[in-house]
């Protein structure tokens, strides 16, 4: 598999404090890569830098082109998409409008309706609530909308920040099933999660981020059996 996205020695600072230090990671075409770690390890910061919302030092490349000083909007036009932890939905606007705006960056508008139908097939609840304001949805429905809105942009690399945060276990399972099924569409995924077990069960490859640095990495099926990770993140045994 060829490399799609890479970060090399990326450092991100808030004022003078280094929140992420010399992080290197890569995502191959069609691969699901997860970054796990405790609260405050710098996982969200890493994704914010990857999409360009935060400035960073080091090198970032996507399909061979340097992301460097590229703006958020230019990255989105190259089909990098972030579903942020706070979802960032347009709460006063309808579900349908939120989804439509997901396709804003697409120059070729001919397939938008087809993609919308696919999103509604994937999340029938969104179709039922298409006229409802996004701000009135439940937590699980909001996450579905955030995912659906990102899919409307036909992403090449989808970055997901804590998709299971604050959701009921049943909904978490549904969300992870959806994430796994996106691989079949050819979407590469960079998944940042505190729910390490669910993330490693879904991913192909994993990185462990602690206090801003990558401390361990490897195929997800190996990490899930790693004794240190079992003790630290996977609930013992």
């Amino acid at each position, binding site marked *: 598999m060829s490399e799609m996205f890479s970060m090399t020695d990326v450092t991100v600072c808030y004022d003078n404090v280094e929140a992420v230090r010399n992080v290197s990671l890569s995502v191959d075409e069609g691969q699901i890569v997860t970054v796990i770690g405790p609260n405050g390890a710098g996982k969200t910061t890493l994704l914010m830098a990857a999409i360009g919302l935060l400035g960073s030092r080091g090198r970032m490349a996507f399909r061979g082109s340097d992301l460097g000083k590229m703006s958020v909007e230019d990255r989105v036009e190259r089909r990098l998409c972030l579903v*942020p932890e706070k979802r*960032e939905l347009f709460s*006063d606007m309808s579900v349908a409008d939120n989804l439509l705006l997901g396709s*804003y960056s697409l120059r070729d508008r001919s397939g938008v309706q087809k993609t919308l139908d696919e999103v509604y097939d994937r999340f029938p609840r969104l179709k039922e609530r298409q006229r409802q304001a996004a701000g009135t949805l439940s937590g699980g429905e909001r996450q579905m909308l955030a995912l659906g809105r990102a899919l409307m942009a036909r992403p090449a690399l989808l970055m997901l920040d804590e998709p299971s945060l604050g959701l009921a276990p049943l909904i978490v399972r549904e969300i992870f099933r959806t994430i796994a099924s996106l691989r079949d569409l050819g979407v590469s995924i960079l998944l940042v999660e505190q729910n390490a077990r669910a993330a490693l069960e879904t991913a192909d490859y994993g990185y462990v981020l602690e206090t801003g640095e990558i401390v361990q990495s490897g195929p997800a099926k190996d990490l899930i059996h790693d004794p240190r990770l079992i003790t630290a993140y996977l609930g013992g045994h």
Partner: protein
Amino acid sequence: MTSDIAAILAIDGIATGAVYALVAIGTVLIFTVTRVIFIPFGDIAAFTALTLAALDAKRFPGTGALVVALACLATLVEIISLVRNGDIRLLPRALLFYLAIPLAVVGIAWLVMRMDPPLAVRLVLALMLITPIAPLLDRIVFRPIADGTVLLLLTVSVALHFALVGLGLLFFGPEGVRTEPLTSFSTEFAGVLISGQTMLIVLAALVFSGLLYLFFDFTLVGKSLRATAVNRTGSRLMGIRPARAGTIAYLLGSLMAGVSGILIAPVNTVFYDSGFLIGLKAFVGAIVGGMTSYPGAAIGAVGVGILESFASFQSSALKDVIVFSLLIPILLWRSLASLHSEEEIEE
């Protein structure tokens, strides 16, 4: 006061309020998309009236020179910004949007004016000449400080208003103007005479508000502007560029202010510095709507117009005092209401 006089004052107030409503809607549009309280909108309205008066008098208006000067300055600022960021590849696009299009607008207006065009064409020319001003000012003044606080943006906006008043004197001169009425039609309704100009003002306010509603609800660009107003980070993650959304908002807002300038010009004598009161009264209307609601701003602006009309009947000298005194209870009510909602959120 008899009921006849009250009816006349109410109709007059609604017409004035409709003009304020157009400016108020533009003010809300710019504020929600860019966080700038664009005080110079009143100046844009006044400049439109002065531009139309110059065109009526077969003189090329000072607006042309103003647009050319702003276009050159905006192009310079954009080129410096592109060079600093290493985005030289965007240079042709910058030259097109900040230099070629504004110069083409001025050139077309100059050529058409020489053909002694009818009133309808002169109206279009006046609007064409006025609409590039606010987007160019945005590029020169507000874009470099776009991430500043609302207070900083407001302070700069007030300063910009005073700069524009000075430029207004330079480009238009100190004389006041009153353009010819757009229609001489009038009719009597329930014993009260209503002029065609009054009906036109209210109709134009309704039509432009309606068009704006359709634009926001049925076009992707309109929805992208609403999205930017609701959630700036979220909209950036969809690929919506805040700067571009801001430019569209300034263009639309200028158009609204321009239309209000055209409508008010036959009713009031307009000077280079008349815009401040128009803008400020529209701002009071926008505050009634909490600076975020379009219907609220429109209703507030019409309320200001009616209050002003009755106030000028009671005491012409105190009419502005009465209108602006309205701000105090509204701001008190607004601050109490927002305090209440914050408490609710904390709970």
